[in-house]
């Protein structure tokens, strides 16, 4: 029997017998807060910690017809327009990219400044647009 099944079984036992899993006891909220949550509804229900991804996983989105609007398919798609390039230092339009650091720059002055940066700060600048070197 999986853990999940154990929990479900317990839920039925805890319930009031009508199969809904509901308890007849009224939960005193103040006592719940003061007493350190022995009586949490969510933990009783087996809703222990799940990451957002796990939560989405149990939604079975893939079994739905594709035209049903879900959290994931209302996400805007990647842009079809070419992303505009801006100078990493000044924010002006960047016509150039430094082949060494991969930083974008708009002028000799900006280039000089960016070249004077130590490596870790170069990475910091790149990470502003999530382009830093990632170790895999």
């Amino acid at each position, binding site marked *: 029997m999986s853990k999940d*099944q154990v929990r479900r079984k317990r839920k039925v036992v805890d319930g009031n017998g009508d199969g*809904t899993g*509901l308890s007849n006891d*009224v*939960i*005193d*909220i*103040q006592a*719940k*807060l*003061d007493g*350190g949550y022995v009586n*949490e*509804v*969510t*933990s009783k*229900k087996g*809703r*222990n*910690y*799940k*990451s*957002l991804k796990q*939560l*989405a996983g*149990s*939604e*079975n989105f893939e*079994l*739905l017809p594709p*035209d*049903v*609007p*879900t*959290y994931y398919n*209302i*996400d*805007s798609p*990647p*842009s*079809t*327009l070419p992303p*505009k390039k*801006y100078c990493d*230092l*000044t*924010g*002006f*339009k960047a016509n150039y990219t430094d082949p060494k650091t991969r930083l974008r720059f*708009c*002028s000799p*002055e*900006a280039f000089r*400044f960016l070249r*004077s940066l130590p490596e870790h*700060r170069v990475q*910091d600048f790149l990470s*502003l*647009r*999530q382009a830093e070197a990632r170790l895999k």
Partner: protein
Amino acid sequence: MVAEPNGARADEAKKKRRVVLRDPEPLLNSDPSKSFNPRDGDAVVIDIGSSELRAGFSSADGPALRYPPLVSRARDPGEDGRRKNFVGYEALHTSVRSGVRSPFEANIPFNATLLERLLDGTIVALGLANEKKIDRPFVLTEPPCQMNNSRAFIMEVLFEGYQAPSVCLGVDGLFSYMYNMYSSTSTSSLSQFNDRNALIVSSSFRATHVLPLVNGRFHAACAKRINVGGDHATEALARRLRLLYPIFAPALSYDRVNLLREEICYFSSNYEEEVNRLQTDPDYFDQVETAIEIPSQEGTKTCPSPEELERQRKLRAEAGQRLHDMMAARRKAKATTEVAPKEVERKLTSEEVHRVESLLSELDELETISDMKTAYEDDYYMSLSRRGFKQTKDLEDAVGKKEAEIVSLKEELGEELMAQAEEKWRKRKFEDALLETPDPLLTADQLKEKRKVKSIRGAAEARERVKLQKEEERQKVEAAEAELRRQKEQDPDGYLRRRIKERDDLLQRIKKRKAAREAGSDRRSQAARNRMRLIAQQIMPENGKKMPDDFGMRDEDWNVYHDMQGGDTEEEEQEEKYLADLKAEIFELAPHIAALEEAESRGAEKLYYPIERSNELDICLDRIRSTEIIWQPSIVGLDQAGLGESIDLSVSSLQGATARESLVKEIFLTGGLMNTPGANARLQAEVRRVLPASFSPGVDLNIRLAKDPVLDAWRGAALLAKIGGQELSDSSVSRSEYEEMGPEYLKEHFASNVYYQTPQSDRERDNRKRRR
């Protein structure tokens, strides 16, 4: 003295906008001065957003509670140290930051346990905890296209934890729209919205949504979400400022930057154009540029009272007096002990010593000659003639003269000193004799003595040499300085020119060296190759021959390390210092030239370099850049269509041209980020751009901003509760419906999400069958 351009600049600086970076005021979960007495039958209205939770009763005109959705567990200092749960600002005040957690990820409340605690804390704060059963309808908001799981645990808490009679759920942006529509028309029924078409743009903390409302219902199939919001804008701004101004990084906290963003950032109606204008038009740049004043650390300290200041001043004065007395006493004691023996121990000056010694050695020489008379007569006469004496008597006269001179000198200097000098001279003479004697003629003891003398003499000579060298160098420097002074006086213009040239050369040299260092970091560069060659040579000399192992014998040998390193930091520091001196001198000589040069270089730098001043920083382009991320998520590296493009996608995916047109005709803006100035103008521009060609060119765009983009969602939810009756019960899930349909069930109404059942995988279905 102030030149014209400087004056103009000063005027501009006066005009420049200034903003003080400040902390948000410390807030409480609820305003203690306001009491909220819910009427019977009032609904509990909670707007759970990822930035803020707003809760209250439906009869009020605003939420009674507003706080960030944060939960912590901490020991309560007031009570017996038991761990208690805190929410909102209380959590922030009682716990360390790391212990404070939010149930949200992105814009979805995903952590059931934390969410329950948050709701519990809210219920307690609303004063409902003592009721055994909360017999009030609930109206809550949820994000568009809320996940069923997430909704399920909210419903479970409400129905099972609080025994709620009914729960109504709706989308925050749609509630906000409803409230604004309702308050702008006179009819008091919600049925007027049944055939309404509108496009609602809701930009909140973690996400920006495009929500089409078609025939009075949320048309979720065409909704779009961009995963950036106010949180991302603030984060982007904060990270950029911290990078550009590292010295202020500790002062640039998230909360402060958030306030700053709300204060100074705006939407540019045409970003491309404005960026270009900022780059090319300095006047416009100055106009947009804002100085941000960083509060100094002293400012945060509490100011001591005048009495306290007086007391501290007295203490300092007393301590100073004590120290002063102590030093005076010490000086006095030193003077009394040292003065007396000093008079006895008068030392001979080097001149006097020289006189004594030359006299003594001359006398000694003469006596040596006269001693030779008996032993080596030939040598004696030769010495006599060499000294220019004709006969023995001349010699005796000379000896007598010297002796007389010595006697007179003795009188002059005093018996004791003379004796000392003589003693010294004799010792030296003995040592000289010892050194001159060849080793084989010496006994073992004498040899030892000779070695000792030799080493002592060597050290003394070396000291003397160094002293001389130093003196020489000092003289050289003094001569050079004198020469410079002379040039400065005689030909000031030429001198200045030379100094400027020297400075430029030095600048050039430093620049070149930096370039060389840069090239060094590239492995294939010439500099790097030279370095490798040097290192290889040290290990294995060329031709494979082993070099004679005399490395280090010559001083130049050690230069190889210098070359390998590609530069000397000490030397560089000296050069930098010299450069600074030069600059200072040039400034002193010709302040007008230096100021002009400075201004010129600043003018170019201003656009490109973050200029650090002691207590302020400048923001210009970042005023529009940080909010631009919802139009161009690629700025923060997110590969997603921006808001303009998303509106296009949303509208064009709708069936029917008339429906599309009616949608664009009514655009409604809500959500915290839409409070930013310029939202309306930018949206106009974007919608015009994406408008399909088939649209009649004269389409009237009606873009409206919510009256209060932040609170209207709560007010809309409260409005539904206030209208109550059939309208509310038709939109709410009742207890019996919850029990029948399960926790994910949702009653659809015009502001709600679209309900769909969570599909079951085959495995889950099998499991269920087996349990039965």
